[in-house]
């Protein structure tokens, strides 16, 4: 048996390196042989060989839909992959509370909201609510957290004001609606606002949602990002550990300065 070459990973259908991929897309072209050929050409542009338009549909007017199979010529060197991951050691509810008590010795204050016009509360509630999510308690239940959930459709300004008010250690923002990248502009505006308020160094800035990745969060100037399937304990553990790391850094810097 041929071995998988980690430097050249290709899609797999039923034979190693066969490169088989399924595509589906519409084109703004009237249905017919021309549109079908355009679909095929497009797949070739993407780097496919043996392109097969296996299904073509008339969407009415000047649109057509295609299902295409092809062999992908590209490959990925997985030995070179860089995967930005939230740096955190898994801890459960009890471990995190003990950790905060022992290492920080004070309650952590967090303020959370689903901001802008977004009204999807289920995600942020999953992280925050007493009753918790997937069998885990939410941050409101943690004795060593002081957790405040502002709910949905909260203007960025209100969130920042509340955070300043509460002297929050961390701000948690949820963004579910992503059409026309509205989450990007909304999150970017939040970061600007926080920097304008001069509190960027005082708070952990965390965002989450189904289309959020840690990488995207970092790009936007957040400290961390949490995607689908996040559990409250992930977030709690991260905040606790990061705050302790932060205190260490601060005291180290202060020591140096002295």
């Amino acid at each position, binding site marked *: 048996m041929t071995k998988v070459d980690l430097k050249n990973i290709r899609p797999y259908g039923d034979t190693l390196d066969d490169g088989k991929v399924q595509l589906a897309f519409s084109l703004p072209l009237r249905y017919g042989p021309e549109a079908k050929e355009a679909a095929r050409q497009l797949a070739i542009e993407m780097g496919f060989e043996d392109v097969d338009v296996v299904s073509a549909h008339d969407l009415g007017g000047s649109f057509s839909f295609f299902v295409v199979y092809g062999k992908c010529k590209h490959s990925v060197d997985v030995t070179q992959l860089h995967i930005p991951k939230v740096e955190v050691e898994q801890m459960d509810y009890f471990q995190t509370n003990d950790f905060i008590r022992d290492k920080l010795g004070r309650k952590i204050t967090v303020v959370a909201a689903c901001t802008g*016009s*977004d009204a999807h509360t289920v995600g942020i509630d999953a992280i925050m609510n007493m009753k918790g999510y997937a069998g885990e308690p939410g941050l409101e239940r943690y004795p060593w957290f002081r957790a405040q959930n502002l709910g949905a459709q909260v203007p960025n300004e209100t969130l920042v004001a509340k955070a300043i008010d509460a002297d929050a250690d961390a701000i948690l923002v949820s963004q579910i*609606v*992503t*059409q026309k990248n509205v989450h990007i502009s909304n999150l970017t505006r939040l970061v600007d606002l926080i920097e304008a308020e001069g509190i960027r160094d005082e708070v952990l800035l965390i965002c989450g949602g189904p289309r959020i990745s840690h990488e995207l969060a970092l790009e936007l100037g957040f400290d961390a990002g949490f995607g689908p399937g996040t559990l409250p304990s992930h977030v709690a553990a991260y905040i606790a550990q990061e705050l302790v790391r932060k205190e260490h850094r601060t005291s180290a810097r202060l020591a140096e300065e002295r």
Partner: protein
Amino acid sequence: MKLNLDTTRIARCRECAGDIADTIMEGVNRVTTTTIERTVCRLIGIDGVDSAGVPLPNVLVDMLHEAGRLASGAACYVGRAIVATGLSPQAIAEKVAAGEMDIVSFDSVEHDLARAALEDLVAKGIARIEANAERRRELMEKLSPGIEPLIYVIVATGNIYEDVNQAQSAAKAGADIIAVIRSTAQSLLDYVPYGATTEGFGGTFATQENFRIMRKALDETSLETGRYIRLVNYCSGLCMPEIAAMGAMERLDMMLNDSMYGILFRDINMKRTFADQHFSRMINAFAGITINTGEDNYLTTSDAYQEAHTVLASQFINEALAHRSGLPDEQIGLGHAFEIDPAMTNAFLYEVAQAQMARDIFPNEPLKYMPPTKYMTGDIFRGYLMNGMFNLAGVMTGQSIQLLGMLTEAVHTPHIHDRYLAIRNAKYVFSTARDLGCEMTFKPGGIVETRAQKVLDEAAVTLEQVREIGLMAAIEEGVFAGISRAPDGGRGLDGVAEKADDYWNPFEDEISARLKKNGGGACD
């Protein structure tokens, strides 16, 4: 009735819901709201925006409200201005907006004269709505009205022109009903945006011009396909009656109009919402527009198996309130949804139980069945199959309106082919299992029947409890969707005003009279 449900229990639920609605109506009849008055302005012909982009009905009504004059209704002020100036309502509104006229400066004009001055305009407003209802009837007769379950899909590009592309494509593929989803949070705007719009998020703004553009496009496609394509938009929010009026003027066919949605899901004040929903539903009723209620929303946040009875309880309340706004059963599209966790053994049987129960309890109502959304993931193949099982439940249990699920529900608002695939899904399932519902009977005392009876029993308990404490208090206690709202909390309470003795709303009067004459439901 296919399920052997306890009919006295059903009757008892209806009685409870009637009492609950009556209590609500007492409060409703005592107040008016800014949006109700703006609706009157719109119906007598005021439209457009001022130089700052504020809609003229808002300019006028805000002025009246600030002056503490809402209690008498906007109509009499406009009437007085007409008498005094001889100008059209539109010209008056424009002058007021330009700061060239003070709308409360004509108090000296007799009330009767003011009424008389509006007579023709009111008649014209009424006639426009009637003509639309008539035109719809004509088209329905001329073209095929579609076969139930009707295929209902949404468009939500944010751009009305792209929406047209998507809607026409869907209609050609077999959609009977097109709903243009609104931009996020439009329900929180205390005005209706103006003109054609191309920038919305998760939906397209509901504006009268957008309604017109889409209606025109769908009329074209109706003629092309030989099927009457219905158009839907949303009443919900801070502008319920205004949008209802716009829908009536542009011949929409259905409107989302739930008596509690705004309260629970948008934190809109309950007094405001109950007043607004009533007048908006009267307009819907008169315009021949079928309402769609929003019980599906209970299940997207709470557990669909546990909270099934709240859906039924809410359906009874929505029905009772709808009757009190003059809506006949045939225009009450009660909502429910296929949202039970697909990991549950026999989930499909429980879904069928719920859907068949709704069909049995509301035999004349065009039930609107909402697809799985909550348990949809990025696994589009599994999603497509779940939508197929949902479509099967729909055709098996005789649902009227099937809002099709999208295989990409968890990913994005629908792409043009997502909708096409959804329509093909429904058409295949509806056809391949067309008579399955008639072919089979449920085992007496089996899983399906037992489940339906249990949900009915629980709904009865809930309704008794709500009647006991009143709907407002029940909402405060979080009976629905576990969400608690205070009677004086939420948005829009500042737009509510107690009616004065001389309060006058010519459209409410006229529509009320007409609905009674047409033999529709009695209208409070």
